[in-house]
């Protein structure tokens, strides 16, 4: 075959497109760093409730479970945190480091330069509700002394508290599957509507809320006391009233127990608090960061029946002194 310059040029042009394009694209991948500053890529995935440092692309989003990002830095290190999301709006917030909240709109990319100047283990939060797994969307941000290192086991230990609760996130509740019994129903809602994450298992409380005036998120197993319910019998009768969905206002004319009016006032206020939520929390240090966790409003998300069930469950949680 006679060598034809035109043919060769055509072939070269085709080759240039076929080989050159992926090479150029790969060279400018965000997972390659050409500058001197380390870039930490963080991608939010709402269905899994995580920020991940893994590479997320069109191909692997379908079948992969990504690893929750645990960010490790050394004191004095300068990095660029690069945030993206693959589905909905998320945010990234480390109150103790006054980093963020960075609102990450889907389809945009946010570069946030950050210098580590205090050592410690910090928690990052997503503060913009991003679906069923939102309340699980937190992880650890570790700043070590320079030269220090952290082993895999230690990392696992640090992360332990966060990952164990994931079972509730992966299965959104089907309303038809709710148990009939009011206390079981309340328990299930308490867990599946994610109250459990902030208020603790069984409402035991103790979850730290950075720079919150009361330090920790209120415990709820003592709800009966807050409602001024004197003893277990009364508590049971109130649960019974909740079960039959009684009109509490009407009962005021003929109170079933002595402190009923005080109970009713408290009951209504708690009920209202669940409906309204609390957006702005009192800060411990007024110049400090905004507390990351706040009570959501449940007005359009829980029916009065469901709120009653949760309240009944919590009243039932009280440890009565014999």
């Amino acid at each position, binding site marked *: 075959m006679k060598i034809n310059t035109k043919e060769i040029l055509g072939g070269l042009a085709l080759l240039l497109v076929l080989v050159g394009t992926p090479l150029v694209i790969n060279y400018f991948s965000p997972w390659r760093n050409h500058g001197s500053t380390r870039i930490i890529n963080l991608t939010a995935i709402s269905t899994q409730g995580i920020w991940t440092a893994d590479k997320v692309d069109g191909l692997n989003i379908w079948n992969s479970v990504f690893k929750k990002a645990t960010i490790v830095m050394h004191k004095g290190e300068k990095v660029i945190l690069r945030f993206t999301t693959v*589905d*909905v*709006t998320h945010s990234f917030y480390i109150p103790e480091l006054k980093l963020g909240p960075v609102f990450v709109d889907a389809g945009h990319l946010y570069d946030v330069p950050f210098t580590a100047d205090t050592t410690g283990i910090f928690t990052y939060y997503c503060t913009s509700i991003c679906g069923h797994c939102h309340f699980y969307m937190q992880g650890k941000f570790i700043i070590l002394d320079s030269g220090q290192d952290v082993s895999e086991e230690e990392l696992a230990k640090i992360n332990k508290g966060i990952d164990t609760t994931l079972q509730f996130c992966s299965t959104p509740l089907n309303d038809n599957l709710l148990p009939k019994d009011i206390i079981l129903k309340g328990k299930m809602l308490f867990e599946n509507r994610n109250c459990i994450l902030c208020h603790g298992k069984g409402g035991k409380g103790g979850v730290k809320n950075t720079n919150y005036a009361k330090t920790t998120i209120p415990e709820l197993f003592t709800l009966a006391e807050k409602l001024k319910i004197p003893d277990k019998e009364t508590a049971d009768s109130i649960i019974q009233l909740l079960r039959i969905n009684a009109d509490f206002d009407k009962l005021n004319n003929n109170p079933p127990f002595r402190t009923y009016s005080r109970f009713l006032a408290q009951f209504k206020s708690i009920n209202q608090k669940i409906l309204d939520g609390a957006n702005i929390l009192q800060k411990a240090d007024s110049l400090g960061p905004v507390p990351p966790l706040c009570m959501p409003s449940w007005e359009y998300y829980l029916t009065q029946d469901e709120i009653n069930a949760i309240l009944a469950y919590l009243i039932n949680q009280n440890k009565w002194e014999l």
Partner: protein
Amino acid sequence: MKKLKIILFVAIFSLIGCCIGIGLGWTSKKPVRHNFVIKARQYSYDPAVIVVNRGDTLNFKLVSMDVVHGFYLEGYDIDCEIHPNQKTFKLRHPSQGHFWKDTTDFTVIAKGYGKFKYRCSHTCGTMHPFMQGEMIVEPNVPYHASWGGFVGFMIGMISMFYLMIKKKL
């Protein structure tokens, strides 16, 4: 010239149809106030269709049931960002740029005629670009007019061919 005559002929039929359509569909009611709570979820609004009358006062409260959604009401210069589990949402007027303010509700007066869509303006998942609801301001003049107009157009075309075969056009 013949072409122009034909076009005029059909156009007159369509116009008459338009007028009849508008006339039949015309309503004028005393303005009232509506309070809407619009719940956004992946990937629709509830209510998906709201029907109001021109001049009505419309009060909107926006709620998101799952993730962050938007509410871009076309023709009214309204764009909102709705966060779930919050009583407030963010509102801006697109013509004034990106200045968001927190609010619990907003009020507009129904103006114009016909269908105005509200669309999601914040990417909320795969089907986000198709997430929309519709606000219909009665009387729906474009709709009635095009009904009448299309039927008139058809009658005009048929009559045109009738005249053509009778050699009158």
